[in-house]
């Protein structure tokens, strides 16, 4: 092949490869191993945060009440669901239609699952054994990372800072990469809000803040 052509050809190929690599890093679902950004598993009950946290404006910690005082924010126990779903068991439209048609409203398929997990029939009578619901954890950190919600809630960190706009998600998705560098992006900033009565809090860059 002509020498000149050869040279141009290889240059073009080279540029194309570099561009391809950059694009695949930037815009594709490719992540380095361990990074679960964009993880969006299907849950056993199609619970919509968009509906509950978004439309109904239920506060995060109403259900995830562990966050304030525990390591885990926690997945709400079924009894918390039942606080409302004892009464609410179908959509607003269905209630109205049933009312008009003078029939009992049809139970929502998903709410049925809560009843079933508690071993209740649709009238709330205990008929079966309980079967706990196995939710799929979306936000995972490795076992060697100690993450506790408690100090973050105390420090007034907004839930959305790490979990994204959950109130717009019908199915929860991990929006941040949860990498160590990402954690440090925050931990490196001055947290005026944390300068509470306890005086200066730890330098948040200490390894033992998370690894022990």
């Amino acid at each position, binding site marked *: 092949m002509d020498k000149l052509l050869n040279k141009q050809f290889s240059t073009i190929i080279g540029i194309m490869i570099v561009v391809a690599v950059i694009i695949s890093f930037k815009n594709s679902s490719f992540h380095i191993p361990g*990074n679960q950004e964009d993880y969006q598993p299907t849950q056993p009950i199609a619970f919509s945060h968009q509906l509950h946290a978004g439309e109904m404006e239920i506060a995060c910690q109403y259900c995830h009440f562990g966050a304030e005082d525990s390591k885990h924010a926690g997945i709400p126990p079924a009894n918390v669901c039942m606080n409302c779903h004892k009464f609410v068991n179908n959509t607003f439209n269905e209630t109205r239609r049933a009312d008009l048609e003078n029939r009992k409203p049809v139970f929502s398929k998903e709410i049925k699952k809560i009843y079933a997990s508690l071993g209740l029939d649709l009238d709330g009578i205990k008929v079966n054994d309980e079967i706990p619901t196995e939710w799929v954890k979306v936000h995972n950190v490795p076992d060697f990372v100690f993450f506790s919600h408690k100090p973050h809630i105390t420090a007034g960190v907004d839930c959305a800072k790490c979990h994204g706009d959950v109130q717009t998600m019908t199915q929860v998705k991990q929006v941040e*990469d949860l990498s*160590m*560098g*990402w954690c*440090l992006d925050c931990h490196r900033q001055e947290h005026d809000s944390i300068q509470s009565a306890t005086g200066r809090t730890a330098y948040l860059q200490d390894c033992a803040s998370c690894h022990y």
Partner: protein
Amino acid sequence: MADHQTSIREPQIHGNKNLNDVTNEVCNIMDRKPTWLWWLGITLSLSALTLGIVSVSYQIATGIGTWGLNKTVGWAFDITNFVFWVGIGHAGTLISAILFLFRQKWRTSINRSAEAMTIFAVMCAGLFPIIHMGRPWLAYWMFPYPNFRGPLWINFRSPLAWDVFAIGTYLIISATFWYFGMIPDLATVRDRAKNKIKKFIFGALSLGWNGSYRVWHRYETVYALLAGLATPLVVSVHTVVSFDFATSSIPGWHTTTFPPYFVAGAVFSGFAMVLTLMIIARKTLKLEEYITLNHIENMTKVIIVTGGIVTASYATEFFIAWYSGNGFEQFVFLNRALGPFAWAYWIMVGCNLITPQFFWFRSIRRNVIIVFILSIFVNIGMWFERFVIIVTSLHRDFLPSAWSMYAPTWVEIGTLIGSFGLFFTLFLLFIRTMPMISMGEVKSVLHFRGKGKET
């Protein structure tokens, strides 16, 4: 470079060879069928290597616990082997670089294989810091590279990080130097190759070398520069290796004389290993005319000098321990000489102090068999030197409650044998596949006037 010089000095190469003889004889080593000795060698080496691979695989699969280490003695065979092999490597660079700068013409017949030896030894050495890790699959964390951890770099204060750079640079520069020096010879092989495949391979390897003098001219400059860079490098590498110990807090390690002591020791052991290899090579490959008794004698002289430095270092250590007035320091040296590992200490002293003294006698220097045996003793002694430094300092340091003993397991012994297997396998393959004597350089010291037979 007149004719009369040859009558005063013994010629570097014997046998009154012309240029073509050199080409033919060196290339013939690669061309002819291997001898039974080579086959024997490669069989032994490969067996040893297999043992090593089995040992290391088992260790990596099971854990460092398969070694005889404990909570007090955290390093033993692993780092001993590492320092030993790095030391071996030093002679090659010394021969090719320092002797080049000093215009020592006798180096030309041995520098190629000595450099190859360097590279193989450094490869063996480099293996140990990796396999000695508890989690060797994460060895790449030793390199500073951008990452998603903050980014978390490496600790540039750690002598082990220095080791990574020193050994890495050493391997890269040595390999470059070796390959760069080999390019004209590769072209020679290419040009006389009949076989198409061989022609293709050597054609690629020789990078289009055509003997142009304009290139030769720059080539010589680069070669000299590389030699100039390799010389401080070789000194720095063992200095850095000695820092692994010298910058620590453990008595017996925390010693400021370590850098020169280690460099001298490295050259000492390296030359011994070159001697061992060269004596085998000249015998089995019939290279007596290239590697002459003069070469051997010159190398034994280097051993006398470096052996002297090593001896002085041993004495210095004891003197400083006494002079320091530090009880812990004094204890460590008394413990070396009289404690539970005294046997290792006295093997070391016996091999490293007494062996070189035989080389004061010309008759011994020129007796190939005795030199061969003595060179092996030096190697044993230098291996034990590192063992003594590492293990005896650790096993009884400050707190008596933590004192312990050390004994190797078969896995460690297998790994040591395996490293020799790797080294000799590579070396045996090298002499079969690459021109093991630097033809270009040997030719330049022939002073051939074309009076020989016409070819």
